[in-house]
């Protein structure tokens, strides 16, 4: 069963276009959404969260149209946006006391488990936290309401290698609990480590949306890591763009 279907998403900005983006995420899969900075990852994610309005296209979560079932869908998904600061002068416990009231599916047991897992101090404010801790705070709220799908925008950015490793291990544990994880990243090694599927976006276009093994067999040259494959593909895209520009 598909937990998300993104169909023919288009969005034009003065200097950037999202072109006919389509992909789907199956239940219980870890999907790495890879692409360089500015490739369109955040624009796609924001469209999936109804934060920006695509010029055309449709987004369906759990078989339901996002526009018509926004509130219901938001309860079933958890979102974390890298190191975005929410209320930098408020203590974590004050923010959580509000978030807790917003979800009727809030799971206090899960909250306490992940609070301990991430080693967070509830009495700290965001401005007293490191970038990595802010990422963990965002993940904490995303994980504490039994979300069926986690949408994580650059969750591993700003984390040290140990925390990144812990996080990718956590993704695998969540997957075993039936949770689907969709995370964007420009750190391809994280995709390589834990993703079941890879969606690779370049210059606003989906280049590939495949299971990891199929991605490797189709695009990787012998002995090449996924990171090297994507780097090579990105360079050839870049070269083609420069040639087109000159022409």
């Amino acid at each position, binding site marked *: 069963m598909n937990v998300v279907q993104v169909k023919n998403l288009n969005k034009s900005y003065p200097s950037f276009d999202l072109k006919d983006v389509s992909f789907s995420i199956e239940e219980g899969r870890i999907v790495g959404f890879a692409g360089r900075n500015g490739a369109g990852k955040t624009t796609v994610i924001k469209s999936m969260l109804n*934060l920006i309005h695509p010029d055309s296209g449709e987004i369906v979560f759990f078989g339901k149209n996002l526009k018509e079932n926004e*509130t219901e869908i*938001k309860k079933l998904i958890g979102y974390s946006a890298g190191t*975005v*600061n929410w209320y*930098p002068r*408020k203590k974590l416990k004050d923010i959580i006391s*509000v978030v807790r009231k*917003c979800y009727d599916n809030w799971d206090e047991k899960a909250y306490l488990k992940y609070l301990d897992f991430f080693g967070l101090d509830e009495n700290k404010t965001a401005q007293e936290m490191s970038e990595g801790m802010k990422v963990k705070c965002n993940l904490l709220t995303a994980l504490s309401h039994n979300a069926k799908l986690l949408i994580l925008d650059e969750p591993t950015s700003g984390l040290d290698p140990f925390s990144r490793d812990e996080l990718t291990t956590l993704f695998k544990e969540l997957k075993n609990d039936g949770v689907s994880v969709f995370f964007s990243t420009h750190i391809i090694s994280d995709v390589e480590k834990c993703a079941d599927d890879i969606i690779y976006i370049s210059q606003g276009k989906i280049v590939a949306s495949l299971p990891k093994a199929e991605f490797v067999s189709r695009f990787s040259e012998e002995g090449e890591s996924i990171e090297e494959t994507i780097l090579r593909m990105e360079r050839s895209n870049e070269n083609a763009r420069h040639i087109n520009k000159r022409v």
Partner: protein
Amino acid sequence: MQGILIKEFKLSASILSYLFIAFGLMFFIPGYPVLCGVFFVTLGIFQSFQSARESNDILFSALLPFSKRSVVKGKYIFVCIIELCSLIVMSIAVILRMSVFLNAQVYRANALMNANFFALGIAFVIFALFNSVFVGGFFKTAYRFARPFVTYIILSFLIVGIAEALHHFPGFENLNSFGTDNLPLQLILLAGGISFYCVVTFVSYKKSCERFEKIDL
């Protein structure tokens, strides 16, 4: 909806929004343009919008399991509750000035506007203006508020100036009634202010919902 209101009062609000409710007490100050108190209350609410913007409040709210319409509704309810709290303070001052302090020389010798039901009606008009020009203007972008606030300041002080001076013009003397003098007129003007507040705020809320729905966050 309850969650978004708790968020407004616990996370988004600046402490100044609560403290500045006390500016309603300016309705007691003799020889002072009492309607400035209304402006100061809105200045307190403005502080909440400012601190909310610094805290990425709108994006945070939009990610919670509520519709975008609820996010707008939460902001409007917060603003209206602060305004109504200050109006309660102003009403107490007006009733005391109309009864206990009816003959107090400091109020009788006041060249400016008397704090009566007409003044209260004008307070409603100024708040309506704030809700429409500032709050409605804010939701055009959900982050820019300088222009709406400056526009509101100009318009509100224009209304304060006109209202404070109006009773000096021939034919408008009754607007400065003391106690229960010309009570029907005072009550009609108050009712006019309340109606204006309700209609303008509701229209502004509806427009803000439409605007916010179209914004890319």
